[in-house]
């Protein structure tokens, strides 16, 4: 077999994949358990921080964004996040200020 000579990856990514998988399962367990604690207004913040961490793990390691060399691809990803931010921020700025009177 010529697996080792044809592979462009110097070392196997399997260890990374399984570590990320364990981290994602742990994050799911954590978010489920933390929801049962009374953290006041911070419950939602903690849930979103855990969710974003999990999403980043998937994007960086499973979707291989970490090794993306294409600058164009980075532009697409960053502008996606930017436009989502505009959508959420301007909508909230609208609804958040409607009751000022």
């Amino acid at each position: 077999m010529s697996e080792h000579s044809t592979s462009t990856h110097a070392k196997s990514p399997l260890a990374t994949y399984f570590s990320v998988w364990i981290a994602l399962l742990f994050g799911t367990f954590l978010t489920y358990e933390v929801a049962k604690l009374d953290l006041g207004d911070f419950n939602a913040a903690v849930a979103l921080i855990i969710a974003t961490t999990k999403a980043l793990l998937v994007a960086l390691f499973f979707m291989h964004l970490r090794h993306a060399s294409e600058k164009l691809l980075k532009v697409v990803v960053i502008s996606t996040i930017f436009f989502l931010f505009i959508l959420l921020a301007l909508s909230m700025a609208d609804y958040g200020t409607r009751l000022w009177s």
Partner: protein
Amino acid sequence: VEVQGDSRALRHHFATEEQQRDASSLGMWIFLGTEVMFFGGLFCSYLIYRLMYFGDFAAASVTIDARLGGANTAVLICSSLTVVLAIWAAQTGRRALLITMLIVTMLFGLAFLGIKGYEYYNKFVEHHVPGASFSFENQEIPNHPGEYANPRHAEIFFALYFIMTGLHALHMVVGLGIFTWLLWAAWKGRFTPEYHTPLEIGGLYWHFVDIIWIYLFPLLYLIDRHH
């Protein structure tokens, strides 16, 4: 005319195979960008109504079985692992492992839809589906003894719940279709260590659907679970 047989054929408008692969990948990421905005509108509606009707949303959310949502999160995370293992199998020329991982991924996808269907079934039985038979009377707001949720506001939560999880489930069905095609192509031996771009593109889609669920789970299932 489609190029038959050799799937590694470099299309004439690309200079190199690497350029061809990068173009496919970029196209997929642009599509996923539009998907983020697609779901983003729903997340935005959710955010606005949740801030307006916080207690009603909490009362509605606690009627959903969070264990089912949690189980489905684990199922999707496992399916994302099998997707990267499938791609790794293609990269290292392991055809049997590739086919196995594609089948396992699809089984996880079907399990997700099964659990989701059971969850929907419960909501139908409880009359928590927005519409003529919707009923949400005398449901106490969590941590506010003696205060009851406004059924009209709770109905908005369930409308968002069904639209967001339904749209996500629709993406899962599309994903299963894509993976059926990938499985067929893998069976035909079309993927090699040099050429497996469709697997990577299909995988990007599957992971994206996983990411959407990673946000849906805490937002819809885990509001005010503490007592």
